C-alpha cells in the first residue's frame, strides 16, 4: 500500500495543477487580453478636436476627475451597437466621456454624432492611429476608465453594455455623486 503513496500523490498534484489551469483559463477562447495599461498612467497625447476645429485636446483634460475614454470609429459596427450605452452613460451624468475617433473620416464622424446623438464631452481625431497604438488599442470600440490622478483603472475591449458599465466600471467610482470635470467641449 505504501508504495502507491508517492505516485498517487504526484498524480493528485498534477490533477490540481491542471484543474487550476483549466478553471482560470479565459472563457470564450482567449480573445480578451488584459491590458498592461491597467494601474498605469494614461498615455499622453495631443490631438486635434473633431468638432471644435483648430483646437487641440491634451491628455491633461483627464486629470482632476473621473473620465471614460472611448475609442471608436464610424467604420466600426460594434461602435454603433455601443452608442446607445454611451448616450445612457452620458444621461447618467456620473462620468464625462472623452472620445477618440480612430482612423476615421472627420466628416463621417461629425455626421454620425449629429444623427445618433453625441455622448462625448469632447472628441479628438486620431487620424493616423498613433495615439490608439499608445493606448494599446487593437479592436474598436475600447473604453478606459481613468481616475482623477490620471491612472487607468478599468478597460473594456469591444462594445460596452449597460451591464458591463454597472458591474465593471461603476464600482470603481464608489457611491459619490457626479464626478466633476474641467475638460470642456
Amino acid at each position, binding site marked *: 500500500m505504501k508504495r502507491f503513496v508517492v505516485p498517487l500523490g504526484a498524480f493528485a498534484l498534477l490533477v490540481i495543477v491542471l484543474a487550476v489551469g483549466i478553471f482560470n483559463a479565459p472563457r470564450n477562447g482567449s480573445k480578451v487580453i488584459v491590458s*498592461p*495599461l491597467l494601474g498605469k498612467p494614461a498615455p499622453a497625447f495631443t490631438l486635434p478636436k473633431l468638432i471644435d476645429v483648430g483646437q487641440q485636446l491634451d491628455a491633461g483634460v483627464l486629470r482632476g476627475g473621473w473620465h471614460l475614454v472611448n475609442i471608436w470609429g464610424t467604420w466600426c459596427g460594434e461602435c454603433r451597437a455601443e452608442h446607445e450605452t454611451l448616450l445612457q452613460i452620458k444621461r447618467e451624468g456620473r462620468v464625462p466621456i472623452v472620445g477618440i475617433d480612430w*482612423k476615421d473620416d472627420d466628416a463621417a464622424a461629425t455626421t454620425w454624432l449629429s444623427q445618433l446623438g453625441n455622448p462625448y464631452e469632447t472628441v479628438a481625431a486620431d487620424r493616423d*492611429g*498613433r495615439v490608439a497604438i*499608445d493606448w494599446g488599442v*487593437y*479592436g474598436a470600440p475600447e473604453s478606459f476608465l481613468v481616475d482623477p490622478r490620471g491612472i487607468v483603472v478599468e478597460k473594456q475591449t469591444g462594445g460596452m453594455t449597460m451591464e458591463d458599465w454597472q458591474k465593471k466600471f461603476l464600482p470603481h467610482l464608489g457611491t459619490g455623486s457626479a464626478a466633476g470635470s474641467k475638460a470642456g467641449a
Partner: protein
Amino acid sequence: MRSSASTRRRWFARLTLAAAAVAWATASLAVDNTPPLPDPAMQQRYLGLTHEFRCMQCQNEALADSNVSLAGDLRMQVHDLLLAGKTDDQIRDYMVARYGEFILFRPRMNLHNAWLWAAPGVLLLAGLGIAVRVMKQRARLPIDDEEPPDTPPRA
C-alpha cells in the same frame, strides 16, 4: 482512344502549370507595403521583428503577414522606431508596454513563467533521482530469479 488520352494528359499538364503560376503570383503579392529601410541590415532587423510580433486582431498571424489596418500601422511604427535608432529590445519593450506579453510569439522568461522554464530540468533531475534509488534497491536484493538447481537440462 490513345490520342484522346494523350490530349487529356497534355491538358492536365497545362492546367497544373497554370495553377502553379497563379499560386506563385499570389505568394509574391506582398502584404507589407511599408517603405523599405535604407540600410539592408536594418531591413533585416525589421523583417525579424515584424515576424516575431503577433497581429493583435488576427491572433495567429504575425505582424508581417497581416493585411489588417492596425498591423500596417504597427509595421510602420517598427519602421520608424528602427529609423530612430532604437534597439530590437527597446522595440520589443515598446510593444509589450502597449499590448502586453501576448504580442510576443516567443514569450520572455519572467517571474510568472519561470517555473515553466525550470520544470523540465527539475522533472528530469527528480526522475534521475528515483531511477538511481530504484537501481540501488534492486542491487541489494538477493538474486532469486535464477533457475532452480534441480531443473532437468534442456533438450
